[in-house]
């Protein structure tokens, strides 16, 4: 490499020069512990008025020399400072520190797991306690963060158990690359890919493998200044998860058992149940009944159910959705034990989650085992070994508007048709219409299974040879294997010969960090220097076999298929990084922080594989300079300012060359609309074959760059009873990597990978904490968070002003993720133009929606009265458009509630031929069907207010089982999503993304399993 290793040396030497150790011959040995007797490593010991000082070692011991009577001042992050008198000649001292109750001394976990005082930070972070995550009763950690953190947008996908959720911090930064936050568990990055679905619909985001119950807290690092040390991937924001540890103080094991049971019912879109299956008969001018067996149609434009007679009997009315969905049941059992003996401690946890979905035959099982063991190998060498193991099994069904998906024919089934039995006497499927499956047939004949076994071991060694110096070596891995299987029986509408897909994924990632951390007080300065090295290696292997032409019913082995295609892929990427950080704190008033990192990435051009970046940030704690009269009201005030530039390699491996590839599954033209089915894969008829990749390699690919400016204010009032934090940020992606950006096909290639994208995000985040009432028996806590982010695409590539991205588009001058579709033709004044048939029409496409919310906010309230606690969280989103695809199809079928209005009508508007007001009468069927063809008609504002959780708890303490070994017990009842207010959205739950968590899947509500409202009961007992 051609970096400057000298730099490191110079920095290292500088640091040594500054930190010479002072020593005098009269020794004092001391030990600093907390109230529990645990050592407080890193505490600072100063002899007042002498400038002498030292730092407490990992085992709590310190040594300092003194002359005559002296006053020691001991300070430590998170503890109240204490002063101790030492007599002349005294040689030993024991000091107990009390944990600080003051919020301004709050300690937060920052990049690389370094704990720092929140007051001294130069950037914005927000912490969520483990208890708050557990309270959310969400099996998926991402969902548990919903509504709690400013600047973070979380979008759930579908209501199928185990479905993914998307988490984006401070807006999208990449067009086609990853936009979701980097997830770090105890200093080690873990994979959060969405996997496990071999057909349409969401999969599982792999963070779901981690049990929320083992989490001590989550620290959300938002800006580039906060995450620069994490290197490239951190540019998207970091979710830092710290797991629970045992208690270091010598004590007996503490066992906690908790059992949750919850019941889920789906949020369904409203459908009409007044009209039977049928179609408008243009000859008789009547809505004609179709029975669904002899006369089939997709539509429910039939006669009124109330007066419909079938075979002389009044027609029976069915409720297709209510009959199909059932109450989901989730059970979660957790048992944990923790303890320690002063030198070592442990935490063990096991949980079993079993979730059965509201769609029959869907479920999610997760066994999660976590063990952490922390021990002192030597006096100044501390080690932690931890292992997280999980095993999950997910059963799901295809979702969305594909022929295999059962929900399509559930939500659009006629109310006059009995869906059972699902087979005709001849063994063929019985369906009310052509070209679809009976949803009950699907339950017995289509499945999608995903089984994941995952290990996350982490070893951390902390060596403190000197009081002010800590050397950390951390090795972690994330290893999982996944077995996926999809089966579709013969006779399916989409694949009449049936198919079986078998997929195995092997993922492994190794991470290594070596960190040297030095802290020293010099006069009024507190200096901290950190140097480190990171190595990250990631490998994924995928084996995929597809068999079509099944021959044995009820037998799931792929060997029976008449045609089998197989594909294997391997992806390997590696990164190395060197980093340094310097913090200078002057009189706890002025804080300057500098970081630098030099990264090398395997996926970039060899000439450009190494790239430097860094940040500069400062804080000014102005409350230190205010008079006591002012600080009595405003006890803390800080302004912070930062600028960071972060290099990023957000691209898959192997994008530099143009190889040949095996044409498979017609996937040779990905993402291009308008292609008629070209379903073929090689080998084909006994011949194998290769075609040139259509994506031209770019041998000079370099890193993209994210620049961010942030300014923030943090204030506390009335002795921390009220806290306000506000941040403004402006971030911009430059040279953004666009894999497969379209180029003129006449070059022989449909796309190439370039460094071109420019996109900006600007936003405001506000966080308000308040404790309006605090008394012995009663307290009220309130938290409010608000974020408003404005994204804008500034540049794509070489004259491109618009490129597609799944269900949305990327357009210069627009936010990332606008919906493009057909627009109603209108007059200059905005009135609908009406064609000669009397109907509105479209002859062009354009931007019809923006999926980005105007703002999002959350309010949480917690009331405690004696042993009762009541808390509730409201979550709000203003704006953010959704393409309601259920209505899009439903208008054609006449199934949504609004289509109940189907009387003949004159559509208000101007006739396109004569420019006069329209007077042509049309029937309801023609009207709704015309609307179904114009996407603009189903773009709905996704504004919502949600009662995300409401929870009532009672803490029995020892009262329930007095005089027994039971230490405490509590009972909690929690409601989730019990109430949703969404004035413009006609579907069930507007917070949905039917096709998963990827950037291209956003903004569409289709035929996926509805999300649920649920009631949860929890009993927790500690021994």
């Amino acid at each position, binding site marked *: 490499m051609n970096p400057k290793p000298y730099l490191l040396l110079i920095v290292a030497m500088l640091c040594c020069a500054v930190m010479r150790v002072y020593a005098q011959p009269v020794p004092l040995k001391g030990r600093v512990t907390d109230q529990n007797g645990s050592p407080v490593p890193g505490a600072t010991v100063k002899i007042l008025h002498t400038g002498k000082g030292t730092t407490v070692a990992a085992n709590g011991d310190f040594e300092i020399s003194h002359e005559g009577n002296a006053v020691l001042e001991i300070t430590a992050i998170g503890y109240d400072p204490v002063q101790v008198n030492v007599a002349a000649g005294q040689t030993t001292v024991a000091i107990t520190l009390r944990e600080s109750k003051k919020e301004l001394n709050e300690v937060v976990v920052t990049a690389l797991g370094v704990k720092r005082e929140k007051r001294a930070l130069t950037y914005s972070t927000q912490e969520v306690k483990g208890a708050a995550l557990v309270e959310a009763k969400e099996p998926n950690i991402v969902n548990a963060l919903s509504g709690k953190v400013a600047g973070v947008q979380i979008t759930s996908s579908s209501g199928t158990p185990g479905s993914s959720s998307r988490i984006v911090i401070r807006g999208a930064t990449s067009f086609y690359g990853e936009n979701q936050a980097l997830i770090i568990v105890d200093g080690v990055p873990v994979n959060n890919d969405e996997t496990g679905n071999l057909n349409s619909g969401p999969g599982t985001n792999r963070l779901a493998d981690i049990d929320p119950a083992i989490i001590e807290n989550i620290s959300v690092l938002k800006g580039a200044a906060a995450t620069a040390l994490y290197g490239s991937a951190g540019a998207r924001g970091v979710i830092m998860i710290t797991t629970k540890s045992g208690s270091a103080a010598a004590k007996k094991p503490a066992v906690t058992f908790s059992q949750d049971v919850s019941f889920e019912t789906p949020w369904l879109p409203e459908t009409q149940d007044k009209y039977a299956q049928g179609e408008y008969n243009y000859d008789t001018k009547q809505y004609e009944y179709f029975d669904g067996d002899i006369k089939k149609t997709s539509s429910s434009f039939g006669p009124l159910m109330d007066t419909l007679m079938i075979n002389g009997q009044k027609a029976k009315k069915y409720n297709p959705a209510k009959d199909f969905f059932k109450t989901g049941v989730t059970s979660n059992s957790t048992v944990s034990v923790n303890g320690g003996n002063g030198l070592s401690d442990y935490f063990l946890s096991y949980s079993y989650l079993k979730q059965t979905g509201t769609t029959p035959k869907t479920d999610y099982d997760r066994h999660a085992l976590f063990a952490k063991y922390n021990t002192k190998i030597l006096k100044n060498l501390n080690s932690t070994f931890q292992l997280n193991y999980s095993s999950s099994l997910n059963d799901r069904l295809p979702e969305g508007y594909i022929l295999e998906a059962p929900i399509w024919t559930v939500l659009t089934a006629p109310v006059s048709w009995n869906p059972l039995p699902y087979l005709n006497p001849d063994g063929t499927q019985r369906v009310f219409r052509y070209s679809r499956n009976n949803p009950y047939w699907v339950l017995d004949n289509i499945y999608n299974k995903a089984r994941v076994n995952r290990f996350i071991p982490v070893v951390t060694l902390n060596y403190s040879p000197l009081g002010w110096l800590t050397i950390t070596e951390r090795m972690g891995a994330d290893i999982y294997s996944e077995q996926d299987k999809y089966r579709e029986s013969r006779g399916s509408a989409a694949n009449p010969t049936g198919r079986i897909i078998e997929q195995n994924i092997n993922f492994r990632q190794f991470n290594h960090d070596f960190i040297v951390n030095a802290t020293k007080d010099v006069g009024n300065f507190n200096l901290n220097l950190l140097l480190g090295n990171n190595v990250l290696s990631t490998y994924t292997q995928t084996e995929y076999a597809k068999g079509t032409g099944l021959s044995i019913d009820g037998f799931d082995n792929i060997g029976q298929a008449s045609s089998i295609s197989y594909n294997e892929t391997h992806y390997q990427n590696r990164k190395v990084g060197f980093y340094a950080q310097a913090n200078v704190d002057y009189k706890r008033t002025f804080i300057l922080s500098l970081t630098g990192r030099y990264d090398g990435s395997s996926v970039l051009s060899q000439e450009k594989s190494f790239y430097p970046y860094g940040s500069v940030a400062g804080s000014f704690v102005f409350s230190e300079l205010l008079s006591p009269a002012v600080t009595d009201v405003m006890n803390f005030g800080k302004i912070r300012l930062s600028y960071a530039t972060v290099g990023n390699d957000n691209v898959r491996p192997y994008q530099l060359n143009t190889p040949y590839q095996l044409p498979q599954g017609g996937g040779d033209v990905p993402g291009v609309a308008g292609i008629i089915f070209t379903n073929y894969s090689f080998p084909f008829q006994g011949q194998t074959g*290769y075609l040139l990749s259509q994506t031209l390699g770019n041998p000079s690919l370099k890193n993209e760059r994210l620049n961010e400016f942030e300014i923030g204010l943090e204030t506390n009032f009335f002795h921390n009873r009220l806290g306000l934090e506000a941040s403004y940020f402006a971030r911009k992606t430059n040279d953004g990597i666009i894999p497969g950006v379209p180029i003129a096909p006449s070059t022989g290639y449909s796309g190439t990978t370039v460094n071109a994208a420019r996109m900006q995000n600007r936003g405001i985040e506000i966080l308000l904490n308040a404790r309006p009432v605090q008394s012995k028996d009663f307290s009220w806590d309130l938290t409010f968070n608000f974020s408003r982010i404005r994204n804008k695409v500034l540049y794509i590539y070489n004259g491109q002003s618009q490129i597609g991205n799944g269900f949305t588009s990327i357009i210069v001058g627009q936010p990332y993720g606008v919906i493009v579709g057909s627009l109603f033709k209108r007059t200059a004044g905005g009135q609908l133009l009406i064609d000669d048939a009397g109907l509105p029409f479209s002859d*062009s496409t354009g931007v019809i929606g923006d999926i980005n919310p105007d703002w999002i906010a959350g309010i949480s309230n917690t009331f405690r009265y004696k042993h009762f606690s009541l808390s509730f969280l409201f979550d709000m989103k203003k704006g953010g458009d959704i393409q309601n695809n259920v209505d899009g199809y439903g208008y054609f079928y006449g199934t949504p509630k609004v289509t109940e209005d189907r009387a003949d009508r004159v559509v208000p508007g101007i006739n396109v031929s004569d420019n006069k007001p329209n007077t042509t009468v049309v029937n309801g069927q023609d009207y709704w069907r015309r609307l179904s063809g114009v996407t603009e008609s189903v773009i709905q504002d996704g504004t919502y207010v949600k009662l995300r959780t409401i929870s009532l708890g009672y803490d029995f303490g020892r009262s329930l089982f007095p005089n027994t070994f039971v230490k405490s017990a509590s009972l909690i009842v929690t409601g989730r999503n019990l109430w949703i207010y969404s004035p413009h959205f006609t579907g069930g739950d507007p917070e949905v993304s039917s096709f998963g968590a990827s950037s291209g899947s956003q903004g569409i509500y289709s035929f996926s399993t509805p999300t649920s409202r649920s009631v949860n009961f929890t009993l927790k007992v500690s021994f």
Partner: protein
Amino acid sequence: MNKVLYIIAIAGCLLAGGCKKFIDVNQDPNRPSSVQEALILAPAELVVTQSMYAGNAAVIVQEYLQTIALNQPVPNAGTYYMVPSDMDGDWTILYATCLNNVVRLDSVAQQNNHPNYAAIAKILQALCWGQGTDLWGDIPFSGALAGADNFTPEYDKQEDIYKGMQQLLDDAIAAIDQQSTVVPGDDDYLYKGDMTKWKKLAYTLKARYYMHLTNAPGYDAATQAGLALAALDKGMEADDDDLKFPYQGIAGQENIWYQTFLPGSTLILASGFIDSLKARNDPRLTYMVKPAEETGLYTGRQIGSAPGSLEAYSRPSDFYQGAGAYNYVVNYEEALFLKAEATLIKSGYAAAEPIYRQAIQAHMTKLNVSGSAVSAYMAARGTLTAANALQRIMEEKATADFLSVENFNDWRRTGFPVLKKVLNGLSEVPRRLLYPQVEVISNPQPQQSARLTDRVWWDQ
């Protein structure tokens, strides 16, 4: 203390030295960087015949010809609604999926001195350029397919592309005449390495492309007809010579037209085609068309009308649409009808008559229509006259060339079979396709302002 940090720093340097090597892992283990001819030929034949000659653009053209209809609300392709981005995929197929590969096949074959592979590659190139220029007129030709060396290839004149196509076919014939012993085997789905058939195809294509220029400015119909007749003398001689892709019909290997008419596409047959067969009492109706599932009737959908029940409309018969049916690209009947038309131009309707009858007979035989039905039909159709000869020849050619893009070229050249603007049609019947959005953006050229109703150079 300095020692510790020195060690760390030195260790860092040593590690850094190994870094470059450590991260040198970007060699693609999934995709090869070079392959031999047979591996390119097999998929190239599939994509040229299937993705291009029966792909999106080919289906849209069938909608213009009122052969296929989309069961969707208006406006749609059938009512002449098109935005440039609708064509993005088709150009990707033309240039990136097909041409880039057959041109590469040509160069690999030349490097390895395998003239038969080079010849096939050249014939397939001619088929690609022909499809491209017939549908879009001027397109990138001389500067195309250069990758990063030319991101904005200029658009060549259609006349020059036609010259290039004839040259490619001549070169192919010359390469076959080298009599190389290296011939493809099963990697050649189309002719199984029978180079004689490839040569007949080359001559038939020469004739097809000569005849396309009968109305071209500066070209003389009689001269073109003469050139075509000369080429046809060495062209296809029997059904066995058809350029058709065989499908095994098993799962994953279904005929492209079977896939095209699966319910998901909502494509079915249009009333224009079915009603014309009915109007002529053509016995081929039941051999070429399947009755509607819902009604048992032979019903085509009227393009532009409100969508109806998909299963109330007919789809093609299993001869064309069966999972194991052939996809016909150039057939022997086309060669016969080309000969009939060229003879009509050179020698008049009487001379064309026997060839015209031979062509109808050949198609009916292919469909297995009984002899009596054939003769009854021939009788009902009557003999050719000066007034009706061209119309009859082109109508019958269109029936025999069912689902072929060639019918669109023939209609533009001759006006037959007569087409009327469809219900709710947004314009007159289109005479070309739009240039794709992705070219308009990435490679702006003056020709791209063309509208659907504009004419290509030879369509004058």
